């Protein structure tokens, strides 16, 4: 009874948020629900098959792909807007369905595992991101591992080439370790399991304590993150009985084609050293706009810019803008990559003509603003 009343009040809050504040109303409904009925996640997960997706990069697009796969099996709800804290999940679970595929923030994953008893959890990767909030990558990996160890009925699927994921998976009773080979890890100098210097042979690691990517259950060819995440989604889907799909890899890049101020643009989300490196590797044209903000969801510190090699942009026409434009301007300047700093996004686009095509790499808040209709 109390749950039903709580649900009604939460829906009303969502409705008012949409009508009066013109927001999506996704977060507020879950927030109200969890306040009125703290056990809502556990209760609403009962009699439903739950699949969770977490990792530093690729959560939103991989969740979307996995939800497509799972919807072959039955009615499926999923958080489409990247609202990935417990309240976003609660909002999604307010709708009845047989399946729920939920994107979960790295720090909230242990709580979601404990409360929703998922059938499967897909762990994509872990690297430095929003350190003002995550503090240390190792601590996030430790929390994951503890959560994995306490869920013996859950199947954990993960990319074991990432030492932090391999470490978390090593505590699982049921797991599918997937290796693609072909890459190292910028935070992978220390064994997450035992703390000694992690020895890599090209793209493979094997620690004296036993942690290795050499014991995978599934091996796949190397490739970019978008491809790997599509493969991982298919492997996770297959674990639940879904037929594999051939995805357009572009849809896993979190890139949006859109005309802005009359300029045809492809806009890509970048938010930490790993995602910048992935995005910079795909840059093809000569016209570049980089937008750097440092709000809470972007990460309020910009020091990590110095972990990224911007060499791929050398010689291109580069305009930088955003609230922290100066930080990226100076970082490129020191690297000898000349660029023009602009005060606003609009004045950055004014450098280009409608006959140009511009590639935009944007921080989370800037990306959201640009792609939201």
């Amino acid at each position, binding site marked *: 009874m109390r749950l039903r009343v709580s649900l009604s009040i939460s829906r009303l809050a969502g409705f008012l948020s949409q009508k009066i504040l013109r927001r999506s109303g996704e977060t507020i409904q879950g927030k109200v629900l969890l306040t009125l009925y703290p056990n809502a996640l556990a209760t609403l997960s009962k009699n439903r098959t739950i699949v969770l997706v977490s990792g530093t990069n690729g959560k939103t697009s991989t969740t979307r792909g996995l939800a497509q796969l799972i919807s072959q099996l039955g009615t499926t709800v999923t958080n489409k807007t990247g609202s990935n804290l417990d309240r976003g999940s609660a909002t999604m679970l307010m709708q009845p369905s047989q399946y729920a595929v939920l994107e979960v923030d790295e720090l909230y994953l242990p709580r979601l595992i404990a409360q929703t008893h998922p059938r499967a959890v897909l762990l994509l990767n872990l690297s430095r991101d929003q350190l003002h909030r995550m503090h240390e990558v190792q601590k996030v990996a430790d929390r994951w591992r503890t959560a994995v160890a306490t869920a013996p009925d859950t199947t954990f699927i993960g990319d074991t080439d990432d030492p932090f994921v391999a470490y978390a998976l090593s505590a699982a009773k049921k797991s599918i370790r997937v290796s693609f080979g072909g890459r190292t890890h910028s935070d992978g100098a220390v064994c997450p399991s035992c703390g000694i210097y992690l020895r890599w042979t090209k793209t493979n690691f094997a620690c004296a304590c036993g942690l290795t990517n050499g014991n995978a259950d599934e091996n796949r060819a190397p490739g970019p993150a978008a491809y790997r995440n599509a493969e991982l989604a298919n492997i996770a889907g297959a674990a639940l009985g879904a037929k594999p799909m051939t995805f357009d890899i572009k849809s896993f890049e979190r890139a949006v084609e859109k005309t802005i101020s009359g300029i045809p643009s492809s806009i890509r989300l970048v938010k930490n050293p790993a995602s910048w490196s992935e995005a910079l590797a795909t840059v093809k044209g000569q016209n570049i706009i980089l937008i750097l903000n440092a709000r809470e969801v972007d990460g*309020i510190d910009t020091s990590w810019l110095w972990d990224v090699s911007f060499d791929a942009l050398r010689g291109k026409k580069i305009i930088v803008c955003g609230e922290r434009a100066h930080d990226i301007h100076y970082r490129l300047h020191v690297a000898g990559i000349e660029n023009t700093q602009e005060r606003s996004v609009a004045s950055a686009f004014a450098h280009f003509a409608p006959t140009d095509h511009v590639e935009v790499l944007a921080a989370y808040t800037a990306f959201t603003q640009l792609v939201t209709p």
Partner: protein
Amino acid sequence: MSQLRIIRIHNELLGTYGDQGNAEVLAFRAKHLGIDSTIIDISYDQLIPRNGDIYLLGGAENAAQLLSLEAMKRDNALKDAISDGAVLLAVCAGFQIIGNTFWANEKKVDGLGLLDIETNAGQTERCVGDVVAHSSIFNLDLIGFENHAGRTVLGSSTKPFATVSSGYGNGDGKTDGAVQGNVIGTYMHGPILARTPALADLLIARATAQ
């Protein structure tokens, strides 16, 4: 001096918080000042050369911090270089490492003893956020970003690097870092030399002084 030698120590371990940029800013400013320079990366397996002019240590997580300390304890290279007049800029975990003692993974550890400081494990909240400070030693306004748990107490042989007007600094919200001769420690990331390139110029001037 023929060439300014910038030694970046254990970047693969001490590069978590962007401090590797300090080396790039030093080389960039040196070029601007008409000084030829080179950045020499020393990894965990290598011995630290004694003939550097500026040595750099950055921020890291606990396990990486302990590995870097262990590697630097293989010989006295860093201490010898400093006795010979080299400059050392150490940030965050690197700052803690060069002190007398610090805490990592719930253990008290003996550091390199290049700075007369002690760092205690943070019992309360973690120190995270932007820092605004002024260094009277260098006569510079400074900005940076801090992200640490430890609290550092200065001994009698050191002076604070800066007075903090916003942020936690060494933990008391009053001072940040420590200076002892040519050894400078701070909690400020940013990287600090990218945020305040004038400090890079002053470090180069110290390193190139006869």
